[in-house]
């Protein structure tokens, strides 16, 4: 099933969810280019994918929150793979909401990291996929994009900008035979959330990664994808809770 996705680029390859998705393709002997900031982390992920059976894994160092640095990474990816079957954009951070309220410059940096820099990257990837005339782009946004919550609305607003952008791009590129998926994971246990209390709604990053791989490989999923699927229902309710009720909730 995943056999037709052979060449994969991952931006933010050290994300736990990205690794979960990548392992599924690695088992089918796919080729990878992995992009992230830290050489040591990239090496660990590369070794993991090779152990799982990847035919090849190249690494590219890039701080993707720096839009000016993205072009070189994009060139490196396409030079290494020629044509790319699937691109996964998975980088981001979970900012400290309170610190962002106090420090506007920090808030804008976090917004750029999770939102605007990812939009810039997706715009460029969109162009390249369009030029290829084929391919699939999956972008990890978040359920936090669906409604501003007291505890993380800076993060939520950045992911909302990204999600809306990706949704629109999905419609545009769908007509050209290119699939774009806006992945909205719910609560995921990963190094990014290890410090939070993990309730029953937390899904493992491996499970969510498997869901992403399945959607990329099925040849038909596009647009918004909640993972695990129950979050489509949860967020439908959350979006429709009237403000005066929402205001009293604590989450």
């Amino acid at each position, binding site marked *: 099933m995943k056999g037709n996705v052979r060449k994969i680029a991952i931006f933010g390859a050290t994300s736990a969810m990205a*690794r979960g998705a990548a392992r599924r393709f690695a*088992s089918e002997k796919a080729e990878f280019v992995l992009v992230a900031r830290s050489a*040591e*982390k990239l090496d*660990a*992920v590369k*070794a*993991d994918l*090779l*152990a*799982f*059976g990847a035919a090849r894994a190249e690494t590219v160092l890039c701080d993707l929150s720096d839009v000016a640095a993205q072009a070189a990474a994009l060139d490196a990816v396409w030079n290494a793979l020629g044509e790319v079957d699937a691109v996964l954009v998975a980088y981001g951070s979970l900012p400290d909401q309170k610190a962002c309220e106090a420090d506007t410059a920090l808030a804008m940096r976090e917004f750029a990291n999770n939102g605007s820099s990812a939009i810039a990257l997706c715009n460029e990837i969109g162009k390249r996929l369009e030029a290829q005339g084929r391919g699939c782009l999956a972008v990890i946004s978040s359920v936090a994009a669906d409604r501003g919550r007291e505890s993380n609305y800076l993060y939520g607003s950045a992911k909302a900008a990204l999600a809306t952008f990706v949704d629109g791009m999905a419609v545009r590129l769908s007509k050209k035979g290119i699939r774009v998926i806006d992945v909205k994971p719910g609560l995921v246990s990963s*190094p990014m959330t*290890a*410090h939070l209390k993990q309730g029953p709604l937390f899904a493992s990053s491996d499970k969510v990664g498997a869901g992403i791989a399945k959607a990329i490989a099925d040849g038909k999923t596009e647009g918004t994808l909640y993972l695990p699927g129950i979050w489509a229902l949860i967020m439908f309710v959350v979006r429709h809770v009237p403000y005066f009720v929402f205001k009293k909730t604590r989450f």
Partner: protein
Amino acid sequence: MTVCSWGKYPKVEAAAVQHLAWRHEKIDFDPATSFLAHGMGRSYGDSCLNEGGTLLMTRGLDRFVSFDPETGDLRVEAGVTLEEILRFALPRGYFLPASPGTCHVTVGGAIANDVHGKNHHVAGTFGCVTDEFTLLRSSGEILRCSRTENAGLFRATIGGLGLTGLILDAKIRLRRVRGPFLNVKTIQFGSLREFLQLSKELGTKYEYSVSWVDGTAHGAQLGRGLFMAGNHSDLTVEERKEPFVPKLVFPCEAPEWLLNRATIRAFNELYWRKTVGRAVEGVQHYVPFFYPLDAIENWNRMYGKRGFFQYQCVLPFGDGEEACAELLRRISAYGKGTFLSVLKTFGDVESPGMLSFPRKGITLALDFANEGKETLDFLSMLDGVVAEAGGALYPAKDARMDEAMFARSCPRLAEFVKYKDPLFSSSLWRRLGEPNFGKGA
């Protein structure tokens, strides 16, 4: 933060919990506190707890490092679980070379407790199939340990209860299999003597064996049980469909009256009757054969808030056989040993660890709900029987033995302490008096 182990006793406060995510990340080893790795928390007692100290949570170290499809050599980070290895290995024609009764343990934990499984009489412990690991010491040193390199530290760390430092990654040898199935035979036995005879007769014919013993039977039925043996089957998933294994969750902590003499006896009676006739043969999937209890998530909640003790001892063949019968007599008279009672014989394969528990003889394991002093007194009495017969207790399952019993169970303790990391400690280690054999404080 309150942390407890699988036995839910004791519950202790760790001063700090640090989640590790990358092998190369620096850990600030503050000499003012103590450190201990904590994986899945599946040890039963306090060997994975560090009251007042720092727990280094290893579950985030879950990457595979290398795999050779030709030889089955696998290197993984210490937080990878045996379940993850099985899911990886089976489609590639491999299986775990040694596994305990749950697959929800990390590789680091499997080494630190030198766990054993149903094939101990053939393959030995988990340490026996571990070729090498990387150990981070609180000095910041990263040491490669194997049978030839840092060999002392290698043998101290295997079964070393996490006290020699933090295991970062390890290399193990997987075992080839064709598929996930086993040919299984279940045979009733009426006494301990019959059990030993079956172990001797079938041990050479079957790679895996384990027995359930009825901890409530008495009189003529004392020592009755079921001997379960298995070999890997040649059936592949193409030839036989994998069964659907339902996942049940024990939803909440059970009320404490649920487990009483009557319900325990009834369960044992039912389990005994499970095997109709004296012997049954069939094909079984590996999950129910190796991990029957993993089918019920959080089964430890059955014992309620108070938690439970698991008592596992090993007794030498010969003199220990009568002691084993004596233990069963006392357990049956007490009437509160629950139904998860396990008998197995350990074979000749020597455990590499200085503190490793498995050694040649008969091992008996069973659970007791924690009813405070009454339970503790009863278990101390069992200790007396075990000690007299020259037996030993399993530290990974212990929350209550005394220093003398610990010293008896770990005759190479004096050699071990030379390799202990000065900043690593655990609730168990302090409870047992931090033996240092004049090594200085």
